[in-house]
């Protein structure tokens, strides 16, 4: 499947959002996720299956004004 992660194209197999995060190396990181513009909570990541064309956002803390 072809998806985008943080704006960059990625080729992935069938996977849950949780598995994708682990695969991408986010284990242990304090991040939040959205799929196609909708919030995907940490507790729901295991049940959230990635679909072809999904746009995934993985965000973490940053400075803010």
């Amino acid at each position: 499947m072809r998806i985008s992660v943080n704006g960059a194209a990625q080729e992935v197999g069938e996977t849950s959002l949780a598995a994708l995060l682990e695969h991408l190396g986010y284990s242990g990181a304090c991040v939040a996720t959205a799929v196609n513009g909708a919030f995907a909570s940490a507790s729901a990541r295991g049940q959230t299956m990635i679909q072809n064309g999904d746009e995934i956002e993985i965000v973490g803390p940053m400075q803010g004004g």
Partner: protein
Amino acid sequence: MQVYGVTLGSRLMLGTSQYPSPAVLTEAVQRSGAEVVTVSLRRESATARAGQAFWQIIRDLGVHVLPNTAGCHSAREAITTAKMAREVFATNWIKLEVIGDHDTLQPDPFELMEAARVLSQDGFEVFPYTTEDCVVADRLLQAGCRVLMPWGAPIGSGRGLNNPYGLRSLRARFADVPMVIDAGIGLPSHAAQAMEMGFDAILLNTAIAKAGNPAAMAGAFRLAVEAGRAARLADPIDARDMAVPSTPVFGQAFAS
């Protein structure tokens, strides 16, 4: 002051952006006496993990964290961002920014109101970044907001209170609502003026972060906010159109 049930000893809140270094940020927050700092979210790289390091610095400050939705241009974006922020920062507080104009970074009253309504119903404690518009303010309060954050002037402009008459009207119209002046403050005198006008607190970032000496400027703003608040409580004199003598004129020598 109380915001959403939290008692704050300091009436100065700080943004965490644009500092020369994390060390300067830390020192500035400490010198400011701020008990609330604003933070944001961005795409995190799995390898660099810059956000994780930043988050540790903020946690070490021991202050309340107020995440913002900076950069959002629609209610939908802002709502998703708020939900992500709640998870990352483990707080129901959200500084709700929905930008409506690229040039002035002015809030969009329509999208802001919609996002405030949805988020308030979802259990968020919303700090909406808004203009001095009394009607928008009224709608935000009806939408569930218990705090307002009117701008002083456009973000990063350093102009101070651009429309004092409008801000004074807003303050008078909702006398019991905690209001934090957010954006546009450039100098401690601006912050003191806002406090003298009866605003409850000041949130700023650029004026400290981009000063030549941020930590010293943070200390200056701390004093100014305290000065303005104290003056408000001490019942200042009114300005007069004509001069009156401050030294008594009776008993003047050389009087005939």
